[in-house]
């Protein structure tokens, strides 16, 4: 898979735009899944921003490591930038805290099950140092070593943070009044 991605990046560097189309079909799903859990909103816009950065960095891309690691590092940066902008907007009072914590529009939230909504909120409530490795591991479907490469920390740190993230998620759900039986899907 990585070889195919390297080849697509090579073609993209040569200016063949159909390679971008193919990259999008391969990666738009995983990228949106991770961004959805990290940023919570404007997923389509942020996903577009990720591929825009891929396009801009095509000359600098070197097929040394896994393409997924490189791509998820961009995803992480885009999500962090979005979070920073949102914090600034909140600080400038352009956006209220309620909207920030309740990322999805009300109509969409109503359609979700109560448990799914609680899980989403509990995940959003995790501190970034726990949420980022957990989301990368679970929704990005990366190995611990790959997550470590994306985050630039040792694999042992990733393991302990993912475990701590899962434990905190459970305690957060209980704090929000989710019954123990519901926590056994």
């Amino acid at each position, binding site marked *: 898979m990585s070889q195919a991605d390297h080849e697509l990046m090579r073609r993209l560097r040569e200016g063949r735009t159909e390679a971008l189309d193919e990259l999008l079909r391969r990666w738009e799903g995983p990228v949106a899944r991770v961004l959805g859990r990290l940023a919570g909103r404007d997923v389509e816009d942020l996903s577009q921003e990720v591929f825009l950065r891929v396009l801009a960095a095509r000359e600098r891309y070197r097929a040394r490591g896994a393409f997924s690691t490189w791509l998820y590092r961009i995803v992480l940066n885009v999500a962090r930038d979005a979070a920073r902008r949102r914090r600034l907007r909140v600080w400038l009072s352009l956006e209220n805290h309620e909207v920030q914590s309740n990322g999805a529009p009300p109509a969409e939230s109503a359609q979700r099950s109560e*448990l799914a909504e609680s899980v989403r909120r509990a995940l959003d409530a995790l501190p970034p140092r726990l949420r980022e490795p957990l989301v990368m591991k679970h929704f990005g479907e990366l190995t611990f070593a790959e997550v470590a490469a994306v985050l630039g920390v040792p694999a042992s740190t990733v393991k302990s943070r993912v475990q701590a993230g899962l434990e905190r998620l*459970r305690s957060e759900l209980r704090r929000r009044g989710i019954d123990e039986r519901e926590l056994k899907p």
Partner: protein
Amino acid sequence: MNCEQAKRHFIESVYGELDTRQRAPLEQHLASCEACRGKLTRLEQSRKLLDVLGEKPVRIEAEAVLERAGRRALHSSRRWRRGALATAAVAACLLAVMLSGLRVEWHATYLVVAWGNGGEDAVVEPRPGEAGIPGTPKTAALQADPWPVIHDQGKRLESLDELVRLVVAELESAERRQGRALGTLQSQFAELHRQNALRWKLLDQDVRDLGATYLAAYRPPGSDARANPSDQNEQGDRP
């Protein structure tokens, strides 16, 4: 394997990344430790809880990404141009201020705005206890000369005026000298032209005279026959 060692491998087990060498010892420990078994079960439940989150399908078109890249490049170049212009404007203002020697001093009861290099010590602070009009600065220079900066600049202007007069006079004198030289040259040139025209006239006359002499002295063969066709006919009838 004890509980501490077992805990280090829980998360690997939950995500199916447990090393095959660790699998058997961990299972052995879990079979005998209820606390660790419960902890691992809760971790697995938490992992499964994340799967309840729905996924909204996203479709990104390559054209949209390329269009956005183009717009961003255009915006970036415009921003760079605006930045360069702003920097140039600020630099020009700073240069103008530096060249003018602008000086702004904010005192307790008055403000001094001065330009040029003169009048460095023109205004002094009022000394405590000295009499003065309330709200007006009492200055040492004010008593001697109320407008020292202006007077200094007036003297400089006079000097500059004198210098300009000298330069103009010098230029006029040089112009007169040049005019005289040019007049001489012009008359010399006219004389040369006249002599040249005379020579050409004489030469033309000589050439004409020479041509007439040549024509009178030399006639090419057959020129007489062409001149008298009846003679030619007579010669042609001869056997």
